[in-house]
């Protein structure tokens, strides 16, 4: 199944890009997407907040394909 991964701020800078299209095995989780990005892009996503389709998500939430999965450093807006 396909998902779109997004990286922001420190993660974007470390990876050198902010958007990655991934092909993943069925029943992959948000954490599985993170593991794959850490391997492929040599980034450390520990401490990341996770979002699926613009909603905050538990790292162990399962995916069904087609989602946009974002990894966010702790937020500092305002």
């Amino acid at each position, binding site marked *: 199944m396909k998902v779109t991964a997004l990286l922001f701020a420190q993660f974007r800078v470390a990876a050198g890009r902010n958007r990655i299209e991934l092909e993943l095995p069925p029943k992959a989780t948000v*954490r599985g997407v993170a593991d794959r990005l850490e391997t492929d892009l040599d980034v450390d996503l520990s401490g990341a*907040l*996770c979002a699926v389709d613009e909603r*905050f998500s538990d790292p162990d939430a399962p995916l069904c394909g087609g989602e946009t999965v974002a990894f966010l*450093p702790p*937020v500092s*807006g*305002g």
Partner: protein
Amino acid sequence: MAEVPPPANVTAAETGDIFLVSTEPIEPGALQARVVDPTWGGLASFFGVVRSPNRGVIVHHIDYEGYQEMIVTQMRQVATALRAEADLGRILIAHRLGRLVPGDVSIAVVVASPHRSDALTACHRGIDLSKELLPVWKYEVGADGSNWVAGSSRASQPL
């Protein structure tokens, strides 16, 4: 710095709530004029302003990066949470992105209500929730160099 997407300017049809994300300056008077209405007697506002000095160090500028679509989705979540707690009129939440200098307004939360206490309590809760939930990051450049500003992980379980 990161590419900045085009501005989002979203009005919720059911409530009239307004959610703004833009690199354009936030003008407090103009925003409040979009919320004020004779139906509601109280208008409470909070504006966050880029500080300098911050923790004793001169700030030159701050580059604000954001996940724009999700900012709007989360602003909507904030408004829904506020409405669950009080009788409110219109809610406006705005966040500016891009390069801001000291004195610039970075965030606005404006709440109208028939009751002044409800307006003020919701405004306070609205800025607290916005600081936790809006996916925005600050890269601060000042007299001591530059750094990503430490953030909050209260929104959900981190990896």
